[in-house]
């Protein structure tokens, strides 16, 4: 076995997006030794891509918003597959977490009274998204980064961890390599927090970066943790569509929040088509274009435009418009915000203006954008305790997109930035409390030797599979079989393909050495993506109903029975096992909140 450095920390945090950094702040403030490991440079994590805002019921806009409304909106958006206790914690603690950011240095847009300005967003009853133009994620990550750095954790940039290490049942560390040198490294910790984000990179058209290969959930799965709700993959309705070089890049929902209108090739504002209005949202949205227009200036006396329905609903509508032959020039929908005027657009949506100007040759103050759904977010992930973020494996915690439970079958826009704040802190605190009660465990030399051989095999020479080719085939398969509209034959074919690729991934070969070699990195990452793809497809096959992000053409209705279960995927003896668990019941108090009319 090759030599490696071993580094000790009380708490090891894997991932340095919003959730990881917020957890690090908690660990440092508790006076514990904290190690933060990230695959990229610090401050580049996927959090920077969040645009619209962080949802928290501060009630700054003169509307009667409070945690209960936020709770109800989130449960309804998630179609009641959410863990109610988790949503309760989320909605109650959101305001405090957002306000704390101002203390750390965040500078949000302001109301005329000098408070944080809030904007409307899909599925939120009131204006609730605390924002900075359309670059809220950047503001969050930079703020958390500055705060965390000032507290002095050890930060290991461009380091990839690929294996959680056990002592008995407990996770006591992790193993991986430094990207620039390829040198191996082991971390020993009393508690490990996974905050590695989602796994949208397995789809062809995605708003996700190369990092989103699902290492964290993949490692947790390999370590025996339960993954739930894996079938719930969010398709954001508005990704860029043309030119091909930009396909999939996100167009923020803030465009619709600021009044953006969706039209088809006939110029019809198709979100007014009653066929697209889900029963559970009927009556809550404007029913004429006039009312939607009046809402721009008078939100108290008019209902929101139907463009602000949740993401799953709008994505399906665009998909169906295109299928019906009413698509835009390149097969999507037109998104038009020109009626808001150039000054307003440049102030409220500056990065969208710049993005279309530089990459798409479109001036969004004068022309409509062309959009089509793009893979955006993974609602599923590691099953955790609501209070602490503890996974089902002792010593292992998870927070943010890696974890599951808050968003159920569909996440509302603006809830992810809040999720990483609330549960980043919770998981950090949970890890601190756990670490206080345990000693460091001994790292298993067998596990490390095994992982070394997995990592080194692709460099062993000879002929083998090309990891980029496997990646491409996986993206094609998932795009074709497990996208927005699913059915049994498509999913079955996809599952077969994923399993074939899993087999082929064991014989990947790459040229070069270990110094900053992207081919070598991809060779390991693809295996996480493949495990998670299998979990997605297995769960999607089993959920024989349409709910939230899961749309089954062969089961177009909701099933009351399936609405009461979360599907669980676990790794047993190297094989994926699918089971189910009852969705946690709301407490009597929360049941009463759900009953109240909103």
């Amino acid at each position: 076995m090759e030599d490696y450095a071993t580094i000790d920390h009380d708490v090891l945090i894997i991932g340095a997006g919003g959730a990881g950094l917020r957890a690090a702040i908690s660990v440092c403030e508790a006076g514990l030794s904290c190690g933060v490991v990230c695959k990229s440079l610090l401050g580049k994590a996927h959090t920077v891509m969040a645009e619209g805002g962080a949802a928290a019921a501060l009630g700054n806009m003169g509307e009667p918003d409070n945690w209960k409304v936020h709770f109800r909106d989130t449960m309804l958006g998630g179609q009641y597959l959410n863990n109610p206790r988790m949503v309760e914690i989320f909605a109650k603690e959101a305001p405090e977490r957002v306000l704390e950011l101002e203390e750390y240095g965040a500078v949000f847009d302001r109301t005329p009274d000098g408070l944080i300005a809030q904007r409307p967003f899909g599925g939120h009853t009131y204006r609730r998204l605390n924002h900075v133009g359309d670059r809220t994620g950047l503001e969050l990550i930079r703020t958390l980064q500055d705060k965390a750095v000032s507290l002095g954790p050890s930060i290991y940039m461009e380091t990839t961890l690929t294996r959680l290490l056990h002592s008995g049942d407990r996770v006591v560390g992790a193993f991986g390599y430094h990207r620039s040198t390829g040198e191996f490294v082991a971390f020993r910790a009393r508690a490990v927090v996974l905050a590695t984000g989602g796994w949208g990179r397995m789809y062809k058209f995605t708003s996700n970066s190369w990092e989103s290969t699902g290492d964290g959930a993949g490692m947790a799965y390999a370590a025996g943790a339960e993954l739930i709700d894996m079938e719930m993959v969010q398709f954001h309705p508005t990704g860029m569509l043309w030119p091909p070089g930009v396909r999939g890049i996100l167009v923020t929902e803030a465009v619709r929040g600021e009044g953006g209108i969706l039209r088809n090739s006939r110029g019809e504002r198709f979100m007014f088509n009653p066929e697209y209005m889900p029963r559970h949202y009927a009556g809550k949205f404007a029913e004429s274009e006039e009312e939607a227009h009046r809402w721009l200036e008078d939100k108290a006396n008019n209902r929101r435009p139907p463009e602000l329905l949740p993401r799953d609903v709008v994505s399906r509508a665009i998909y169906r418009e295109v299928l019906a032959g009413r698509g835009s020039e390149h097969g999507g929908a037109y998104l038009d915000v020109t009626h808001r005027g150039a000054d307003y657009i440049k102030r409220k949506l500056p990065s969208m203006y710049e993005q279309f100007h530089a990459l798409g040759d479109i001036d969004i103050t004068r022309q409509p954008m062309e959009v089509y759904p793009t893979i955006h977010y993974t609602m599923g992930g590691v099953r955790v305790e609501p209070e602490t973020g503890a996974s089902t494996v002792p010593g292992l915690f998870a927070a943010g997109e890696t974890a599951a439970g808050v968003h159920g079958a569909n996440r509302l826009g603006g809830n992810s930035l809040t999720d990483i704040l609330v549960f980043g802190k919770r998981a950090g605190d949970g890890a601190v409390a756990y670490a206080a009660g345990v000693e460091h465990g001994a790292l298993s030399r067998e596990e490390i030797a095994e992982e070394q051989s997995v990592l080194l095999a692709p460099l062993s020479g000879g002929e083998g599979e090309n990891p980029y080719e496997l990646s491409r085939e996986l993206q094609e398969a998932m795009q074709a079989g497990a996208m927005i509209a699913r059915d049994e034959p498509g999913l079955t074919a996809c599952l077969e393909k994923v399993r074939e690729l899993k087999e082929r991934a064991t014989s990947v070969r790459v040229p070069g050495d270990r110094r900053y070699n992207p081919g070598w990195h991809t060779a390991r990452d693809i295996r996480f993506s493949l495990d998670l793809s299998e979990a997605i497809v297995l769960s999607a096959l089993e959920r024989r109903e349409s709910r939230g992000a899961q749309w089954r053409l062969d089961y177009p209705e909701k099933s009351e029975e399936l609405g009461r279960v979360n599907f669980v995927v676990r790794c047993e003896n190297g094989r994926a096992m699918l089971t189910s668990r009852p969705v946690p019941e709301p407490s009597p108090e929360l049941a009463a909140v759900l009953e109240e009319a909103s």
Partner: protein
Amino acid sequence: MRDRITIRLYRGDGVSGEERDYEVTTFPGMVVLDAIHQIQGTQDSTVACRWNCKAAKCGSCSAEINGRPRLMCKSRVEDYCDEAGVIRVHPLKAFPVIRDLVTDVSWNYDKARQIPPLTVDKNVPRPFRLQQIDVDRIQEFRKCIECFLCQDVCHVIRDHNRKDGYFGPRFMVKIAALEMHPLDGIDRRRQLRNEAGVGFCNITKCCEEVCPEHIKITDNAIIPLKERVADDYFDPVRALLRLVTGAKPGKRSPHAHE
């Protein structure tokens, strides 16, 4: 647009390197980063580059395209081809090369650590009340995506390698965002004058030209910071006051700059 173009790419590490040509197939809207990805995926998977968002929001894929610092994800290939259909892509010049397009930018993170965070007096009422007009200018500075293109182009760093004396434009912008925050209680002029070295900047505005976020680095951040430092240290009236009162420069009440 041409169907095929040539990427003339720097391959090498900190010790040695050379330019190598790769032919790539173009498509509409293609950016330089797409070309690098195509090379990685189909010709040579050892080509090292950094990237994350591919939407000009994270500042990872900084490189020198035809000798100018740019984000590869924001640079359309048709805008950079010469008559022969060639684009030269090199790593940032101001930082040591690790491999190919990847450079060691850790110096920047060391500088960031030396800047004290926002510190608000506990007597300031919460939640904060701030007027939009008062935060407009610092929001401009907070648009920075830390691509370090400004650091790369700055003469002080690039040509004179004075990383020991000057924090560079990126961190002038960062300090400006804190210094001009209406609620910040720390006086930052001493740091600016001393270890951050604001005096090194000779206002050539090269940093402004390369900023992908169009931040007016020199006009809105560095010049006002220079003025604050100059006012404090070199204003004869204040110097006299110091002589009389014994006060040191750089001390003042937290809200004196409002």
